[in-house]
């Protein structure tokens, strides 16, 4: 980290390799679109390199995810303004490159279907609720780190997490009811 702060590109690239997975996955789950997630991930590391002097203390991963969340928010705002393709149509979060063990074809199909349902349910949440759920449940940040990454109090984070999960539950129950008549 110290070498990176002094402008050592090789040292910084080691940090990129270590954290590009979490950054890319958060962007992918927030945006539901692989090309956009790639663009955001690259932008995050460029911004991070330029802003390394501002990183003070705490979790470097949480700091990177803060930049990621802000970049995703900006992109979603632009997308909303341009009235681009709806989120429903863009749900294509490929599981082909996932690091999960290879299942049987039936399991694979079912798993893909469940993952698609979860992603669709996530897409129905507001930006803030989705971010809270993803930071805690997908990225494994603790409540304090997630609250700092979102720039909110612990109470607000708990509230957003609770509401986000409650809405997810509703959507998943509805989807399950549709899938199993």
């Amino acid at each position, binding site marked *: 980290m110290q070498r990176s702060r002094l*402008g050592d*590109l090789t040292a*910084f*690239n080691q940090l*990129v*390799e270590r954290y*590009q*997975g979490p*950054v*890319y*996955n958060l962007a*992918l*789950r927030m945006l539901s679109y*692989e090309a956009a997630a*790639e663009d955001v*991930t*690259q932008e995050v*590391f*460029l*911004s991070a*390199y*330029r*802003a390394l*002097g*501002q990183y003070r203390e705490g979790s470097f991963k949480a700091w990177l995810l*803060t*930049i990621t969340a*802000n970049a995703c928010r900006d992109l979603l705002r632009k997308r909303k303004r341009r009235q681009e393709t709806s989120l429903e149509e863009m749900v294509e*979060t*490929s*599981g082909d*490159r*996932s*690091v*999960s063990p290879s299942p049987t074809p039936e399991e694979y199909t079912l798993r893909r279907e*469940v*993952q698609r349902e*979860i*992603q669709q349910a*996530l897409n129905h949440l507001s930006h803030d609720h989705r971010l809270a*759920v*993803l930071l*805690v*449940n*997908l990225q494994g940040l603790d*409540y304090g780190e997630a609250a700092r990454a979102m*720039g909110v109090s612990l109470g607000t984070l*708990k*509230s957003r*997490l*609770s509401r986000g*999960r*409650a809405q*997810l*539950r509703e959507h*998943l*129950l509805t989807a399950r009811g549709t899938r199993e008549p």
Partner: protein
Amino acid sequence: MFRRRSEPIRHQRVRELLSSYLDAQASERERELVERHVATCEACRRYQEELRDTVQAVRGLPQVTPPRTFTLAQAPRQRMAWALPSWGTPLATATAAALFAVLILGEVTGLIGSPVAHPTAMPSSEALSLKALVQPEAAPEPTPAASDALESLAVQDETPPAATQELSRSSADTSPPPPEEAAQPPLQVPLLPWLQGALGLLAVASGAWWLRRRRAIR
């Protein structure tokens, strides 16, 4: 005596707490409340199970391997090569605010870019305001009503201040004011229009830069 919390509200409260409870982030008191309620409430117990399944489902989402590496081939150009030290942001904010205040105050008070009387030539603020009433720029003949009003002013105040004396003199004498008084050089703050514009732009740019930096790296 405290009234017991009504059942629908209690269900709602417990369900709100269940999220933190499942992550072991609820306080001792909240944990007791949840456990006591769930032990006797079938609906909330089912809700707890469904919420737990939901959390597990999100946790079960696969970590997708990035399609490529995002390492940097070369160091990006530093946008902030002239980056300010830690006190730079407050300084930029204060500068932007001060510039705005100066420009707005200048416009409102007319101190910037518009002529004002020289402070040393001002007998008093009352005299200025009254003089403005009775001395139009072209110094026309005073109307009878104005003369009457000035006379009554002089009668009301037995020891008129210098301003009133001056007014009485000027109203009695219908000739134009003395040339040296009329040609009194106005004070103009030497702020050219282009400088005003530049300051305004600087203020806006400082504010925009500060907002962008704050939003990008919170």
